[in-house]
C-alpha cells in the first residue's frame, strides 16, 4: 500500500472521471453524488499519507518513491517516477482538500452541463496532483501542460461573460511560458548526457549535473537557461508583470475553478521555483543580478498587487489581485534563499491556498445568491447573513496575516528569513523585508475596506434583504478550511518539521552544504536555562540535520549555556 499510495492518490479522481463517463448526463443528482464521492475519496485516500509521512519526515531524500527512471519511455529516458518530500506532501494534501471542497461547493453553482463539469474537474485534480508528485522532469512537464486543458474548459464553458477571452488568455499565456521551459529541460537533458553519457529526465540525476552548467557554459548561457524556467514559473505564480491573466481568469472562472486556480494552480509556479530553479541554477542565483530582479519583482508584486486590489470594484478581482500580493511574499521567501524564508514561503503557499480558497468560496456564495460581484451592489450583509459574515471575517483576518491564524506564520517566517540574510543581491536582507512589510498594512486596508463596504452599514439594496444565510453544505465547505487556518496559526510546528528536511536540502543545494553547518549547533545557545523544560523536546537527543539509522549525527551537546539573566 505504501509503495503505491501516490499512484492511488493520483488516479482516484481520474477513475472518478472515467466512471462518470458512463452515467447518463440527464441524471444530474447521481452525477453530483458520484463526483462528490470520488472527490471525498480522493481526500480520504490521501489521509493515510499523513501518519506515514509524519514518521518519515526527517528522513533524507524523497519518500514513497514509485517507478524507476526511464520506465515510461525507455528510448528517451523518461520515467513514471513519483515521490514526495515535505514540500510536495503539503501541497498534495492541500490539493486533495481543496479539490474536495471545490467539488462540494459546486453542487448548486453548476446547473448546466453538469457531467462534463465534474469530469473535467476530476481530470484537473489528477493533473495537479501529478505536477506535485512527478520526480521525472518529463512527467512533470506532461502534467504541467495537461492540466491546462481542463482548466481552460472550466473557465471557458462555465465562466462569466468574458469567459472566452479569459480562457484563451489563461491557456496561451501559461503555455507561452512553459514551452520555453521545454527547451530548457531538453538542454539539461543533453547536458546531463554530455557529462555522464546517460540520457535521463530523472530529477535526482539532473540535480547532480545541472549546477555545472554555469561553469560549463558560462554565466550568460546559464542565466538564459534560468530564464527559460523562470518565465514558465513566473507566469504561473504569477509574478509582476506577468500577472494580468490572473484577474481575468479568476473573474470569469466559476467559483470552484477560482478556488482551485488560486489554491493550487498558482502554487505550481512557486513549487517549480523551489523544485527546479533553485537546485538547478545555484550559481545564477548566488552570482549575478538575476536574484536582484527577482526579488525586486516580488516586492513590487507585494505592494503593487495590494494597491491595485485596493481600488477594485469587483470582489473577485480584488481577491485575485490580493493573490498577486500574497504570492509576492512567497517568491520573496523563495529567493531569499534561507531555510526560514523558504519554510515560510511553502507555509504561506499552503496558507494562501486555504485563505484565498475560502475567499473565493465566500465571493462565490454571494454571487450564487445575487449573480453580481460588484461591491457597490452590497452593503449591510452582516444584518442578513451573520454566520456568513463571521466566517468571512475570520478568513479575511487569516488572509491579512493576523496572528494565531495561518497567514501570520507564513508571512512572519518569510519576512524574518529574508530580514536575517546579510546580503541578498547586493542589499541587506532588511532592505527587502522593509519593502515587503507595507504589504501587510495594505492587506488590512483593502480587506477591511471591502468588509466594510459589503458587510457593514444598513442593508441599502432591497435585493439583499431576503438573502438566506449559509446552508449546512456551505458551512461544511468552510469547516475544514477554518480548522486548518487555526491549526496552522496556533500550532505550526508540525508543518515546520515536515518542511525542515526538504527545505534544508534545497538550500544546501543552492548555497552549498557549508551554509547550513554554520547554524547547526546553535539551538542550545538560546535554550531557556531554567524554566519549564518539560514541554519541549530538547536539541540534545536529535541534534544536527537528522539522518536516519545509524548515521545519526551527534550534535555537540556541550553547547555553551547562556546563563539566565534578568
Amino acid at each position, binding site marked *: 500500500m505504501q509503495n503505491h499510495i501516490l499512484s492511488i492518490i493520483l488516479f482516484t479522481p481520474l477513475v472518478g472521471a472515467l466512471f462518470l463517463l458512463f452515467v447518463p448526463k440527464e441524471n444530474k443528482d447521481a452525477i453530483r453524488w458520484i463526483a462528490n464521492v470520488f472527490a471525498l475519496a480522493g481526500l480520504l485516500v490521501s489521509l493515510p499519507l499523513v501518519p506515514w509521512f509524519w514518521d518519515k519526515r526527517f528522513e533524507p531524500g524523497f519518500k514513497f518513491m514509485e517507478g524507476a*527512471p526511464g520506465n515510461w*519511455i525507455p528510448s528517451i529516458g523518461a520515467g513514471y517516477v513519483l515521490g514526495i518530500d515535505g514540500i510536495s506532501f503539503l501541497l498534495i494534501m492541500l490539493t486533495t482538500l481543496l479539490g474536495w471542497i471545490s467539488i462540494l461547493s459546486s453542487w448548486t453553482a453548476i446547473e448546466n452541463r453538469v457531467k462534463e463539469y465534474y469530469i473535467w474537474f476530476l481530470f484537473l485534480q489528477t493533473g495537479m496532483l501529478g505536477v506535485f508528485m512527478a520526480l521525472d522532469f518529463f512527467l512533470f512537464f506532461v502534467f504541467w501542460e495537461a492540466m491546462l486543458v481542463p482548466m481552460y474548459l472550466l473557465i*471557458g464553458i462555465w465562466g462569466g461573460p468574458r469567459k472566452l477571452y479569459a480562457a484563451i488568455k489563461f491557456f496561451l499565456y501559461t503555455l507561452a511560458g512553459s514551452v520555453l521551459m521545454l527547451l530548457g529541460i531538453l538542454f539539461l537533458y543533453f547536458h546531463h548526457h554530455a557529462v555522464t553519457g546517460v540520457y535521463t529526465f530523472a530529477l535526482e540525476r539532473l540535480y547532480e549535473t545541472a549546477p555545472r552548467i554555469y561553469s560549463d557554459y558560462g554565466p550568460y548561457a546559464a542565466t538564459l537557461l534560468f530564464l527559460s524556467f523562470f518565465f514558465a514559473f513566473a507566469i504561473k505564480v504569477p509574478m509582476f508583470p506577468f500577472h494580468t491573466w490572473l484577474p481575468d481568469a479568476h473573474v470569469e472562472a466559476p467559483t470552484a475553478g477560482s478556488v482551485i486556480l488560486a489554491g493550487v494552480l498558482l502554487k505550481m509556479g512557486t513549487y517549480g521555483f523551489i523544485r527546479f530553479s533553485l537546485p538547478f541554477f545555484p550559481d545564477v542565483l548566488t552570482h549575478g543580478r538575476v536574484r536582484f530582479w527577482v526579488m525586486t519583482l516580488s516586492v513590487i508584486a507585494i505592494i503593487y498587487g495590494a494597491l491595485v486590489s485596493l481600488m477594485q470594484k469587483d470582489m473577485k478581482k480584488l481577491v485575485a489581485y490580493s493573490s498577486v500580493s500574497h504570492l509576492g511574499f512567497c517568491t520573496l521567501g523563495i529567493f531569499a534563499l534561507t531555510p526560514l524564508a523558504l519554510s515560510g514561503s511553502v507555509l504561506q503557499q499552503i496558507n494562501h491556498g486555504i485563505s484565498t480558497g475560502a475567499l473565493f468560496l465566500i465571493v462565490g456564495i454571494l454571487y450564487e445568491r445575487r449573480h453580481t460581484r460588484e461591491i457597490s451592489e452590497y452593503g449591510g450583509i452582516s444584518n442578513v447573513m451573520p454566520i456568513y459574515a463571521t466566517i468571512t471575517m475570520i478568513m479575511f483576518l487569516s488572509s491579512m496575516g493576523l496572528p494565531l491564524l495561518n497567514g501570520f506564520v507564513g508571512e512572519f517566517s518569510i519576512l524574518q528569513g529574508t530580514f536575517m540574510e546579510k546580503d541578498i543581491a547586493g542589499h541587506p536582507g532588511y532592505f527587502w523585508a522593509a519593502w515587503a512589510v507595507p504589504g501587510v498594512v495594505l492587506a488590512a486596508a483593502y480587506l477591511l475596506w471591502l468588509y466594510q463596504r459589503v458587510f457593514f452599514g444598513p442593508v441599502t439594496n432591497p435585493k439583499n434583504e431576503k438573502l438566506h444565510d449559509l446552508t449546512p453544505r456551505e458551512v461544511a465547505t468552510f469547516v475544514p478550511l477554518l480548522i486548518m487556518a487555526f491549526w496552522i496559526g496556533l500550532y505550526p510546528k508540525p508543518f515546520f518539521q515536515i518542511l525542515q528536511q526538504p527545505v534544508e536540502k534545497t538550500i544546501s543545494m543552492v548555497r552549498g552544504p557549508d551554509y547550513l553547518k554554520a547554524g547547526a549547533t546553535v539551538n542550545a545557545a538560546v535554550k531557556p536555562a531554567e524554566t519549564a523544560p518539560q514541554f519541549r523536546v530538547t536539541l540534545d537527543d536529535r541534534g544536527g540535520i537528522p539522518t536516519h539509522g545509524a548515521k545519526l549525527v551527534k550534535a555537540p551537546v556541550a553547547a555553551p549555556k547562556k546563563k539566565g539573566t534578568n
Partner: protein
Amino acid sequence: MGTLGFSATDYLLVLPITLLTLFALGILLIDLWIPPEEKWVNAVMALCGVAFSAAAIWNPFRPGILVYLEAHGFSGRPAMLNAMVVDRFAIYFWYLFLAATAIAILMSVRYLETEHENHGEYYALMLLSVAGMMCMAAGLDIVLIFIGLELMAISTYVLVGFLRRDRRSNEAALKYLLLGAFSSGIFAYGLSLFYGLTGSTNLAVIARELANNVLKSEYRPVAIVALLTTITGLLFKIAAIPFHQWAPDAYEGAPTSITGFMSVAVKAAGWAMLLRILILGLLPMRPIWVPLLVFVSIATMTGANFAALTQTNTKRLLAYSSIAHVGYMLLGLIAGTATQLSPDGIKGILIYLLVYTFMNLGAFAVITSLRHRNVIGDELDDLNGLYSRAPVEAVLMLVFMLSLAGIPPLAGFWGKYFIFLSLVSSGHYALASLGVFYSVFGLYYYLKIANAMFMGKVEKDGEKLPIGLTMRAAIALTGIATLYIGLLPNSFIELVNWALGIAQNPNVARLTH
C-alpha cells in the same frame, strides 16, 4: 534472373506496389457490375487491397519483405536494377501510407454517398496514388521517383476534382493541376540537369559524382541551379512557403476525405521523397541548401501561422495548420543536417509524420462527418455546439486539436518534442525558440475550433449528428492512436529508430532506486 534482369526477389520486393495496382484495376473492373446502392463493396475491395499490400510487407503466416530483409541484416535491398531500394525507411513510409489510406477509405464511404459521387474510380485512384507514393519512398533512381511522384500527383488531381458538380472542387483541381504540373516541370528540369552533370539517374551515384567531381569543377553553378529547381519541386510537394499556395485552395475545394488523405499521405510521400533526394542524393550540397531551408522554414511557420489566424473555413484553417507543421518539420531537417548528418532531426520528422497522420486524419474525419444533407460542414460555424450534437466526436476533436497544438500527453507533442530536441542538441536555440513560440501561436487557432465546439452557441435543433459506422471507426482509430501514442510513445519511437537504423535506447538511464 528473369527476362529483364529481374530476379524473384525483385518481384517480392515490389509486391506491395503490384498488389495495390492490381486491386486498383480490379476495382475499376468490378465497379462496372456493382449496382449504385452497393458501392461500398468498392471500399471493401480497396481496404482489402491495402490489407494485402500490408500483408505483403509483413504477415504472420508466410515470409514477406520484412522477413526477407531481416535475413539480410536490414540494411536495405536494392531492387529492380537499382531503381529502388527497399529498406526500413521505405517500409516505414509504406506502412504510413497504407494506414492513412485505410483510414481515409473509412472516412469516404458515407461521404461519397452524401455527395452522390460514389464511383469505383475514387478508390482505384487512391490505391494508384499510394502505389506512386510507395515508389517515391523507395525510389533510388530519380526516374522512378519522378514516375512515382507523377502517378501520385495525377491521381490526386483527379481525386481533388472528384466532385464534378461542385465548382469549388473543379476549381481546386484545376489550380492544383496547373501548379502541380508546373512544379513537376521545374522539378524535372532540375533532375535533368543533375543527370547531365553526373551522368547517372541513380541517387547514390549522383551523390558520389557530386562530391567527387562536379562540385569541384566549373559546373558548380549549374549544380546549384539544378539544386534550386529540384528543391522547388520538392518544397512544392510538401507545401512549404513560398510554394504552398496550392494547398489551401486544393484542401478547401477537395472532397473532405481527400483533403485528409492529401494532408497526410501525399504530404508524407513528399517528405519521403524529399528526404531521399536531399539526404541520399544531394547531401554533398548540404552547405548550399541548409540556409535556404532555414529561410523557408521560418517563412513557412510565420506565414502559415499568421494566415491561419483569420480563417473561418475549417478545412482552410487546417490547410494552413498543415503548412505550419511543415515549417516545424523543416526545422527537424535543418537540425538533422546543419552541421553533420544527425539522425535526431530526421527521427523527429518521421515521428512527426506518424503522429500527424493520425491526428490530422482524425480532425478531417470529424469535419467530414459534419457533411450531411444540406450542410457542407466545413465552416467554423458549423462546429458550433458540436459537443451537444456529438459529444464523443467533439471530445476527440478537442484531442486532435490539442494534439496538433502539441499539448502533452497527446501524440502531437511527440512530433514537436523530437524536433525541438534535435534543435537543442544541435545547438539551434534561436530556431528552437522560434519554433516553440509559433507552437503557442498555433494554439490560438486550434482553440478557435475548440471554442466553437464547446462554447459556441448550440444550434436550435440540436439534433444528433448522423455518423456512419465506418466514420465512427475512422474517428475511433485515429483518436485511440492519438491518445495511445501520446501516452505510451515508446514503441513508436523505437519503430522510428528501427526505421532509421538508430540503436535503441542509447545510454538511456535504466537505473533503479
